[in-house]
């Protein structure tokens, strides 16, 4: 690999790959800290509410910074380049360009918002409220001061778009409130991190039972690879990040009929790491959701299957049955189980793609839902002139489960626990 420039990527490198942009091939590698980034990569159009957070991140970057705006599946009503670097805006949209800073002065002005940190760039609010010694003792018997921390929507340990309001007792998370803050996306793609699944749901609504299968399985593998990239970063395990990135890049670059052949070796290499003792010891027993609890919560997708619930929209679908589909299952319901299920789903999706390319298309009845990377998605167009009914059952429940699972966990475990549920930063239907 040649020399690459450190770049802050919004939302993240894996999602840009999903959207068709291999930023590593363009000479950029992802960093997490704005002060060590020379480039900011952001969608050309962003939701207005994201702008303060992006501006805060932009301001923290060193002089000589460049802004790269790319077309993205995500949409918004604000022109990123015009709003972040107005003096260099050329009136064009949706083009890559370079930007140089305008030399902001930050020298210690007491009213200057230098506190970029724990909000991860969220709007410049001061969230370390006056510390009050409460009357409640913590687990070790000490009466501690509560700390309020807000993370997100960008430049935080969590998924881009996810805002977390946490109360800490020392480094123990007491309460957590999670909110996906990105809500403006295409009318028929509520979550742009899984566009193929939503497009497939629309096809299914139109009566198409099978043609979307390769796209959905390809997206499932890519989405899970993206998750493992961010897991490696979260756990401080560059080797996992690099292997997941290799897989994601192979998925991005391979032609449709050869993707399984090219991607399977990379997927198996990554699976070796996922199943290694290093990850198992880190995630085992963390944020356990037992089967009964998962059923009560109404979890779906890989989160449910990791708890042993056999729920998958692909089960009973004639074409999937003919392809030999079997859902990946685990039974412990902990963070490792959720990672393990997703890793096996990557392999399963690639196997399905390999078998798909060699067979005739069966006519099958359209299923009730499409199983996306995070769970089932459905679109039901109603009447002409009315908005379609979009649903992704289980996502709100996963959000609740993630928020509840961090109670009394230490900070790094809490971050790993939330991450294991694969919560999207977009507020899908």
């Amino acid at each position, binding site marked *: 690999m040649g020399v690459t420039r450190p770049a802050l990527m919004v939302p993240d490198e894996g999602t840009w790959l999903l959207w068709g942009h291999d930023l590593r091939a363009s000479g950029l590698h992802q960093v997490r800290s704005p002060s060590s980034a020379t480039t900011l990569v952001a969608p050309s159009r962003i939701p207005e509410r994201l702008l303060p957070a992006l501006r805060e991140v932009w301001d923290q970057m060193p002089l000589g910074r460049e802004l790269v705006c790319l077309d993205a599946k995500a949409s918004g009503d604000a022109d990123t380049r015009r709003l972040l670097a107005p003096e260099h805006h050329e009136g064009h949209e949706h083009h890559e360009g370079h930007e140089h800073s305008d030399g902001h002065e930050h020298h*210690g002005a007491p009213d200057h918002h230098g506190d970029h940190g724990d909000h991860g760039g969220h709007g410049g609010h001061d969230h370390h409220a006056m510390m009050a010694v409460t009357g409640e003792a913590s687990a070790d018997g000490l009466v501690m001061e509560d700390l309020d921390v807000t993370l997100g929507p960008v430049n935080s340990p969590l998924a881009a778009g996810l805002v977390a309001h946490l109360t*800490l007792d020392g480094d123990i998370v007491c309460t957590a409130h999670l909110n996906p803050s990105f809500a403006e996306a295409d009318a028929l793609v509520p979550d742009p991190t899984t566009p193929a699944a939503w497009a497939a749901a629309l096809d299914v609504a139109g009566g198409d039972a099978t043609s979307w299968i390769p796209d959905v399985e390809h997206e499932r593998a890519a989405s899970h690879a993206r998750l493992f990239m961010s897991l490696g970063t979260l756990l401080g395990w560059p080797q996992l990040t690099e292997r997941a990135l290799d897989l994601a890049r192979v998925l991005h670059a391979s032609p449709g009929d050869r993707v399984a052949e090219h991607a399977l070796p990379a997927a198996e290499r990554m699976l070796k790491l996922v199943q290694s003792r290093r990850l198992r010891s880190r995630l085992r027993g963390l944020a356990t959701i037992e089967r009964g609890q998962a059923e009560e919560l109404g979890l779906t997708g890989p989160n449910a299957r990791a708890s042993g619930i056999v729920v998958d929209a692909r089960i009973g679908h004639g074409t999937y049955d003919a392809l030999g589909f079997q859902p990946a299952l685990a039974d412990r319901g902990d963070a490792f189980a959720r990672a393990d299920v997703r890793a096996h789903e990557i392999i399963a999706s690639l196997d399905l793609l390999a078998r798909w390319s060699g067979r005739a298309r069966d006519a099958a009845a359209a299923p009730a839902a499409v199983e996306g990377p995070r769970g089932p998605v459905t679109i039901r167009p109603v009447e002409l002139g009315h908005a379609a009914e979009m649903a992704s059952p289980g996502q709100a429940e996963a959000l609740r489960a993630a928020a509840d699972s961090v109670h009394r966990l230490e900070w790094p475990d809490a971050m790993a626990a939330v991450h294991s549920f694969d919560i999207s930063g977009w507020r899908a239907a």
Partner: protein
Amino acid sequence: MSNWTPLAVIVVALGGALIVALLEQAAAGARPAPALILRRAAAAFDQPLSVPHRPDRWLFHLAPPLLLVAAVTALATVPWAPGFRGIDISTGGILFSAALAYVTPAVFMAGWGSGSPLAVLGAFRFLALMLAYAMPLAMVVTAVAAPAESLRPADIVAVQHAVPMAISQPLALVLFVPAAMAVALLPPFDLAHADGEMGGGAFRQYTGVHGALVALAQRVLVVAVAGMTVTLFFSGWHGPLLPPALWMALKTAGVAALMLAAGRVLPRPPLEQVLAWAWKLAIPAALLAIAWAGLVTLWFYR
């Protein structure tokens, strides 16, 4: 020690930091680019200082220079060749540990001075880490000093002319390396400033000159601990054919490269696990290492 020693130590610090930065690039799979590193370092000095919203100004501004002073002082105790031994005093091993001890208040000052929760959290994590690992670090130094009957690093090198301590005291090596990596803020022991989960932790607010000083200090620390590892365990500058200083430089670069590579293949362990290793395993094992050092000294070095 001559009048040129301080200047020589600074040259070694800067050169060593550059080599460590190149090794970091190589460990990440990128092509080492020294010009790029130097350009970025120069650009950092042009970057305006960014001060947090509610800092403790004295602590915030003093932490990076203190960290750098601690790192350079630790580096100054490393002997590079028979003719260049740095701060060559009879208690050099203790001075090395003492200099590294100042990393803890520097990191704590950085976190507390930043005044933000995650920075303070990172600072406390490092404090807990160092309280646990400072003891085995110092104990191992005394274990290795026993055969040399001296705490002078050059004497410890001299006694290894035939057999390196890595062979005669492997337990001490196994205890020293993780402790050294922890004090040098190297992954997987970078719990104080983990980028992924802490967003930079104690150092998250540092930009411009401060950020450059922190980055420089971190790399000088790597050179210092790698150099001392070679001094204590790998016969220092001893080796055939090549000049002593070159042997020392190659061995130090090799140890540094291994430390950096370990950070890429090992995930960051949870803090409570790291602390448990220290208090329940490392400290008792360090006592065993001292006892073993005594036996080795009696059997082989008398």
